[in-house]
């Protein structure tokens, strides 16, 4: 997993509440055998018409907006447990998702894949949307070490929560797998003392 450092970026605003994983990546796109390529179908049915032509008014198709931060309405990522939702967002080039509430499973899946979900207050979320409405290139700075997110133009800042273990994974570019691999000595020690060798 790549290391998460401080990130300053413009944002893509998606001011819709209760975005479920079926909207993020529809079920019919789940038969792939790699993690890549899901970005193409991110928000597929919002992004494209039935004949596969892009819907011009959807933010991801609007060149006014760009950046590595996706900002979305409350209760993001509800619905099925498909890990493909996190893969799709990341594959489309996002490192951070900001919302005022995340569904549990989505949050876990995102963190497992190095995509940082940041939960802010409803007020702060509204302030971000307002700033982006004023200036589509408005920059946010995410400082994971300090656990803060700042709207650069106004200096408004809010801190966010993150599990300390997950934080250290992101900062060190460790995922769960790297972390447990760093404990190989312990695992081998455990195996030596296992109740039964044939297990």
């Amino acid at each position, binding site marked *: 997993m790549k290391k998460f450092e401080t990130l300053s970026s413009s944002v893509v605003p998606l001011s819709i509440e209760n975005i479920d994983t079926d909207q993020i990546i529809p079920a019919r796109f789940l038969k792939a055998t*790699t993690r890549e390529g899901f970005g193409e179908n991110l928000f597929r049915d919002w992004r494209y018409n039935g004949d596969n032509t892009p819907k011009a008014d959807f933010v991801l198709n609007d060149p006014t907006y760009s950046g590595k931060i996706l900002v979305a309405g409350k209760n993001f990522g509800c619905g099925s447990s498909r*890990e493909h939702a996190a893969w799709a967002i990341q594959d489309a080039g996002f490192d951070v998702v900001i919302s005022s509430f995340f569904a549990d499973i989505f949050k876990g899946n995102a963190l497992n894949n190095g995509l940082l979900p940041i939960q802010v207050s409803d007020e702060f979320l509204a302030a971000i949307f307002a700033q982006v409405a004023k200036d589509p290139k408005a920059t946010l700075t995410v400082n994971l070490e300090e656990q803060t997110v700042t709207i650069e133009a106004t200096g408004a800042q809010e801190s966010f929560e993150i599990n300390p273990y997950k934080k250290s994974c992101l900062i060190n570019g460790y995922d*769960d797998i790297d972390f447990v691999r760093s*404990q*190989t000595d312990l695992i081998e020690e455990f*195996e030596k003392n*296992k109740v*039964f060798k*044939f297990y």
Partner: protein
Amino acid sequence: MAKTLVEKIWDAHVVKREEGFPDILYIDTHLIHEVTSPQAFDGLRKRGIGLFRPKQTVATADHNVPTLNQHLPIKEELSRYQVDMLTKNCAEFGVELYGLGHPFQGIVHVIGPELGITLPGKTMVCGDSHTSTHGAFGAIAFGIGTSQVEQVFATQCLQQSKPKTMKIEVNGELRKGVGAKDIILYIISKISAAGGTGYFVEFAGSAIRSLSMEARMTVCNMSIEMGARGGLIAPDETTFEYVKGRKFAPAGEEWDKALAYWKTLYSDEDAKFDAVLTYDAADIAPMITYGTNPGMGIGIADHIPATAAQPETEQASYKKALDYMGFADDESLLGKPVDYVFIGSCTNSRIEDLRAVAEFVKGKQKADNVEVWIVPGSKQVEAQAIAEGLDKVFEASGFQLREPGCSACLGMNEDKIPAGKYCVSTSNRNFEGRQGPNARTMLASPLTAAAAAVTGKITDVRELLEA
């Protein structure tokens, strides 16, 4: 300190426990299939590593396989691709594969137990929610996501917080025509499809004790359908008897040592559970579901509960479920015509299930309006059924014995129930579209399914048994 069975097994597998962190739990056995493994193999490739302990992983192809003409190439392109990918990945990473054509091939949760891979006291995982099946042996077994599949590949461990524990006791004697499937459908109908969320459930009580190993697997298989992480049953003589002599089970001196250890695997008398529920076996009738989640079940002679009797917040989705099924409030299901009968899936496709069905249908004919599929859980079950002449019984009754796989349990392979049709199914999920777009699934036991097959309608099997 007194411990529950879950705690005993869990604590014996903790590699590292640290405040503020989930436990690092050692996984003895990892089962994989073609659907949830490709991205995990791909992840290893990207890290430039192999499996930490390849010998502790076993693979099979089950979800995408056809159940007719398995010797021919799989017709559906994406299904064929996923199965081929599994073959390729297993070869590259040194994983034992019981693929199509192999005498051990079958549904992942059927082959583990029958090969003696599933053993008391083990920790087992699989990228599949019905991994809970293996808990029937007194193992900690649960389903995991794809990132976790990769984690187990890479480390043979998982980071997991210790679950809460629930004990469900079923005491007394089961009535005639009532079996393991009815027990679990009954429990789920009582506590709802989310009633076990966050728990590991230990099934206990005299009615559970009296069940055969295969019946216990049916119960544990569906613990996930009440939202539980897993279900398990303390091992006893029935368990040891079943395991002894199986292909990968310990033998000789190891067997003696294993047995001595396994006999310590039970919840201590005064162990504390976070929740305890108790049921009376005599209250359980043959069960059937009428809705679109496994909690929507009733005794077969009961009427569908009224929408108005549901909690207000749930009335809309309850109504939607009845509409989908084409049923109404207060209706009886008895006598409703049936189009398909599916006897199979990791819940009910073992030899005892097939024997029970064969014994019941012997000398009877299937009704003209039904198509009946019997899909054995594995190549070994298929071979055993043929050796016992069950195939002849089925043939004479007009039942089709197919080749092993997940089949019509999920609409992923060629076996699908057409839109709008009614299927009495021995599988475990009746979600909208589960058996095919707009298919209508009614979950029931193999006996109740067989009764529907011979009468062509929903039938109380007890009436046919008494006749």
